[in-house]
């Protein structure tokens, strides 16, 4: 790695003692010698293991659940169903006033994705819990499912989630989050070329080294200590408090060293049910995802579809951009309404375009609920935007790097969401990339700056 101090030297003071120093990480020796303690290193006498009975169907009504054989299985201590969960229907962003509550801790009457948790089994060993889970009998009436976002948005599509009432998230702005800036149709009308293209991604896995999990210990003072690898301590504690209808003062969360998160450990899935198990049995409980659960049950990054329509001039200026983004939330909201909205704030990318129209949709389908992941709401948008930029450059016969200089945002430029640009540095990154990759661009672009006089 090289630090190029020649850029922005006029706005930066390099007179610090500790900041900017490549100090060795104090936790590295523990990590590389196996001495660092992770949540799963905790073990308590009498600790129970929790395993989930999961839906084999993408969408089904639950006619009945028979746990009698599972309860008789040697080593089984407790079997939990929806009726055991004090506040079973929840949504995690309720803490920042984003509702409605639309998901169940344990399925109640219906399952909406293959893998959804239906019954929790607590047993003396992992094996006993697994074997007993296989003995739970659930009678399902399979319902039509919908997997494709376009199909889900059509009238008459199977309804994925009754708590929403339609297969998209309803924002205060309507069926999508909207950004309107300038007159996009007038921009298209005056453009030399129009290019409309569609981009698609598939769900991906966070793939942390350490799978999602927690270990809960009931304390002598009526409190519960939860050792967890959550990425957000109080967010998880406060949501657990709501789901279990238990005062937050009864909960003590301990975490802090996590084997990779990437956004996959902010969904508040394992802690509430494990604490409930500890409360109802009076014993410590361990609930850890297997690698298969981490990959197919834990939320992935959403699949997204992005449609971009651009109007561009022969000289390289983009004069109008319309973006329609679709985020596949799967069966439940989790963080997806936030992610889709974040996309609306990100488009049209780091470029100054006078006419912009953005619609971003959060769509429900019968698949594993997606949620936050590194680059949430932006990564797939950037893929679409930057491939589109390449296509536009080739369409008008410009060098793709030079084309980006023509449109790059600079200090003071008004963004589509009506904030003036501050602290821009796209031009300087491209200038340095031009040098490092030996990709020459015209001298006028190498002479550009993100600064503007008076800005």
């Amino acid at each position, binding site marked *: 790695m090289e630090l190029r101090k020649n850029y922005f030297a006029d706005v930066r003071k390099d007179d610090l003692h500790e900041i900017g120093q490549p100090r060795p990480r104090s936790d590295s020796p523990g990590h590389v010698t196996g001495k660092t303690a992770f949540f799963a290193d905790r073990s308590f006498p009498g600790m129970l293991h929790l395993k989930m009975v999961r839906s084999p169907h993408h969408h089904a009504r639950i006619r009945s659940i028979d746990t009698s054989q599972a309860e008789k299985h040697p080593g089984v201590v407790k079997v939990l169903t929806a009726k055991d969960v004090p506040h079973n229907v929840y949504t995690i962003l309720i803490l920042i006033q984003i509702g409605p509550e639309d998901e169940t801790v344990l399925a109640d009457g219906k399952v909406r994705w293959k893998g959804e948790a239906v019954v929790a089994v607590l047993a003396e060993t992992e094996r006993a819990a697994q074997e007993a889970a296989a003995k739970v009998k659930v009678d399902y009436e399979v319902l039509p499912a919908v997997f494709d976002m376009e199909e889900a948005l059509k009238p008459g599509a199977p309804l994925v989630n009754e708590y929403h009432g339609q297969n998209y998230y309803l924002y205060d*702005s309507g069926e999508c989050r909207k950004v309107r800036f300038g007159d996009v149709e007038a921009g298209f009308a005056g453009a030399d070329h129009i290019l409309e293209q569609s981009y*698609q991604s598939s769900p991906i896995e966070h793939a942390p080294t350490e799978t999602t999990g927690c270990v809960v210990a009931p304390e002598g003072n009526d409190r519960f200590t939860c050792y967890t690898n959550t990425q*957000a*301590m109080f967010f998880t504690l406060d949501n657990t408090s709501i789901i279990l209808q238990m005062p937050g003062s009864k909960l003590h969360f301990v975490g802090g060293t996590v084997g990779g998160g990437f956004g996959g450990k902010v969904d508040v899935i394992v802690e509430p049910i494990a604490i409930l198990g500890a409360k109802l049995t009076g014993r410590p409980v361990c609930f850890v995802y297997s690698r298969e659960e981490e990959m197919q049950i834990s939320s992935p990054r959403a699949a997204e579809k992005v449609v971009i329509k651009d109007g561009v001039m022969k000289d390289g200026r983009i004069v109008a951009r319309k973006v329609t983004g679709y985020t596949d939330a799967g069966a439940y909201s989790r963080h997806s309404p936030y992610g889709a909205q974040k996309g609306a704030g990100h488009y049209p990318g780091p470029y100054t375009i006078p006419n912009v129209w953005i619609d971003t949709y959060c769509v429900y389908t019968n698949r594993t609920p997606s949620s936050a992941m590194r680059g949430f709401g932006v990564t797939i948008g950037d893929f679409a935007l930057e*491939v589109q930029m390449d296509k536009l450059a080739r369409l008008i016969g410009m060098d793709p790097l030079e084309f980006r200089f023509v449109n790059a945002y600079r200090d003071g430029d008004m963004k*589509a969401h009506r904030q003036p640009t501050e*602290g821009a540095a796209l031009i300087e990154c491209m200038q340095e990339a031009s040098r*490092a990759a030996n990709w020459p661009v015209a001298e006028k672009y190498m002479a550009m700056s993100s600064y503007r006089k008076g800005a």
Partner: protein
Amino acid sequence: MAIRRGRGVAAINYPTGMNLGGDPTQALVHSTPTGNFMVTLSSVDLGQGMKQIMAQICAETIGVPTDRVVVDTADTDTGPHCMGTFASRGTHRAGNAVIQAAREARQVMLEVAAEELEVNASDLETDGQGNILVKGAPQKSISIFDVALSAHFKRGRSISGRGMFLIPRSYPEKETGAMKPSTCYAHACTVAEVEVDDETGEVTVLTVKNVFEIGRALNPKMVEQQLVGGSWMGISHALYETTEPYYPNRDHGGTDFNQYLMPGPGDLAETEIIVLERPSADGPYGAKGPGEMCANPQIPAVANAVFDAVGVRIDTLPITPERILRALKAQAAN
């Protein structure tokens, strides 16, 4: 049939912190009797090295070496509230909270030192080595060790501070979408060079040259580890990864690392990282959040390089050999 070479570019920006704000983080700082400093947080270290960075920020602000700072984090019985570690927010939000708490503690420390030295607190400075000196008369000094002892046992002062950082929540305007998603943005430009085997559809990423603008590299070695890892993750996202290979079909999802593909050591591209620093107005010592954005530009850069190599556009991720071969076949048919 041949191995064809191509290169592609992508340029991006990325917001720091929870979108639309409203994501507070607090920190507490106090000194021990012998002048070491404890930072108390509830923030989570995901392996990115948050504890180390908070220690360096606290040390810089108080004016002591980093090894005199201990960070205690992620215990809800002791640490004040933090929204969490996500959205490239940890360093920016918690760092600002630590600076505020450390400034308050430093002020008390200087006041106690001023009483001991019989000067004004405003006439004192730290040397970064554990001593407090009178400005312009450095021979008149006192160690922070002695100041902390005095505060604890003689003068009855608590060398401590409270820090809170909050960017107020922005609510998007319904019709226009006017909003403030973020207060600062990191930037990047990546050039990727690939080889594509037009017989098998396999892509080899030969080099990635990444330029990242991150506000301030608070610890350059740790910046490097995050940016190199992110660059690898971007390539993996572009070419390998998915839990649903035939999305929207739900079948064939991988359940372990034999089925869920990622590039291994033999597939690593030659990776170059260049860092620029334009300090952000509201970042701790100018830092922005590069944690997420460093994995983004490689994806379109690789996609554009594949087109440059073989003349077909793969607009669906991941860019698998199957998709490339189908596109080449369609191209040949036309």
